[in-house]
């Protein structure tokens, strides 16, 4: 299945900002992060289809998945 990915902030260097990512079968956010070479320890916030999510949440086909570094509201 295809997932639309966007990576933000200091997670970005060395990676494309946006990409379509193909995964086989069931996948969690963490699986995709690992496949993209993102260190889960550096991921501060995840959204799946505009909903704040966790690394162990499942990802459905045709989802939009965004990875953010640690951020803090001012």
């Amino acid at each position, binding site marked *: 299945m295809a997932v639309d990915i966007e990576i933000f*902030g200091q997670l970005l260097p060395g990676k494309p900002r946006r990409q379509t990512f193909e995964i086989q079968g069931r996948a969690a956010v963490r699986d995709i992060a690992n496949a993209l070479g993102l260190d889960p320890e550096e991921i*501060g*916030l995840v959204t799946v289809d505009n909903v*704040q999510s966790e690394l162990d949440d499942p990802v459905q086909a045709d989802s939009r998945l*965004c990875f953010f570094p*640690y*951020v*803090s*509201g*001012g």
Partner: protein
Amino acid sequence: MKILRVNMKESAVRWESVPKEYEQLGGRALIARLLLQEIPPACDALGPHNKLIFTPGLLGGAAVATAGRLSVGAKSPLTRGAKEANAGGTAGDALGKLAIKAVVVENQGQPKRFHVLVIDGDSAELIPADDLAGLGTYATADRLQERFGADSSVMSIGQAGEQLMTGAGIATTGDRDQRSNHAARGGLGAVMGSKGLKAVVIRKPLGRAVKMHDEQLFRTAAKAFAQKLITDPKLGTKGSQHLYGTASIVGAVNEMGSLPTRNFTEGTFEQSADLRGEKLRELMLAREGKVGTRCMPGCVIACRNLFVDESGKPVVGTVQYETIALVGSNLGLGKLDDVAAINYLCNDFGLDTIETGAALGVAIEAGLAKFGDFDGIIGLLKQVGEGTVIGRMIGCGAVTTGRVLGIRRVPTALGQAMPGYDPRTLKGNGVTYATSPQGADHTAGNAFGARKEVNPLGVEGQKALSLRLQIIAAMLDSTGLCLFARPPIIANPQLMIDMINGIYGWGWKLEDYDKFNRDVLRTELEFNRRAGITQADYRIPEYMREEPLPPHNAVFDVPDSDLDSIFDTL
């Protein structure tokens, strides 16, 4: 320590020793207590019985990293309740070094006549300043720093405060090119204008330092605190705040559907990518502007920027997230250059960008301009400086603008405009907006966080989360600590207790610290109660309970019973 009393009616200043009941207070905690003790809660906020208070936090002047913020307070003409707004800059540090616990401005001078208060070491005087009347905050600070030293601290109002517009804030000068920091919220600039006080100048204290009760205890804790800040992944030089500033969250808030867009009618903005912190950094590096600058000397977070135009000419320092949200996406503007231009004008007029952005959004909805039409919007804003009726309406904030123009969609709580998180999709912030004695204010307890502690779209857990955050915010605002510096203190409150005990020798334990923080809220709530504010006032606007917000089509549905009972366990 001492308190400086300034009587504007008699043009007189008086030093007094700190009364016992104020000794263990600072910043927001002192403001709350002083308001409750010294002013009639139901008084006219712009009348002679209100008092305007400048106070450093408990750590002010002690060279603790990020702890030099200045608190300004009074009864708010917007919320009708207790108000504290704080700002970076150098004034908080200067007051702390001079051992001035508070400057309390009382009574009123003659209408339309202005003075400047000059504090120089252990002396202070009021000098006539009618020559500064009508000037913006930048020109006011420039003139006063020419006269009293480029390294002096200047707190001033612009045209908005002089004309008693209730969206007016108070500008403070900062480190180097950070010329304009604002104690922006709640209309405190109008209170300052009502007193006839155009500015306060503090000559740089030389050879002055905070006296320590136990220097070793203080230094050990302060050093550990600074090291935690530097190594925190959110806050160090590799962290988002330093690299991208407060605008680092534009993308995340937009993705979560909480970015105020076109007068809070949508939660995502199609041009948000051009407003992100990444874009801001890219632009400033290409144009040779500045990123990662400080508003306070010694800050190790350094989240500021100096925004320059295409030719490299400085426009404004700094462009911040809340401003981007309220005068960018909220007005349908997708260019940082447009945001910076509006930001500069607001700073110069001495206007809160949150209140003014919300007011402009309401005015646009009423047809006075179009969303995305920069020329039309800047035309409205310029009228604030000109003092036209429309300008005064905008300058008085969102509620006034909505009433005059007959608009029901007015994003406020307790009379004060909402900052850059729509409460329908970040409901913890909605609870804070509704219940904080400060009115709609993200700094009173911001639930936007890195991990999903509580589902931001759900109802469950929001009350407890907001209460916990409001107690933490009370601590930050009373110690002079920047809210970005909270993680090490939340993780280990003993650091704060040791710093306070090291300076003052109060022998605080964890329960004293906890009581101190909670008492801030208790005192403010009691002031507001005596001012006539009831449970029915602590609410989110009705339309936000009924009008779904795309893309989640969510409404604010935290029950009133949760709002009414939030402080039951305080």
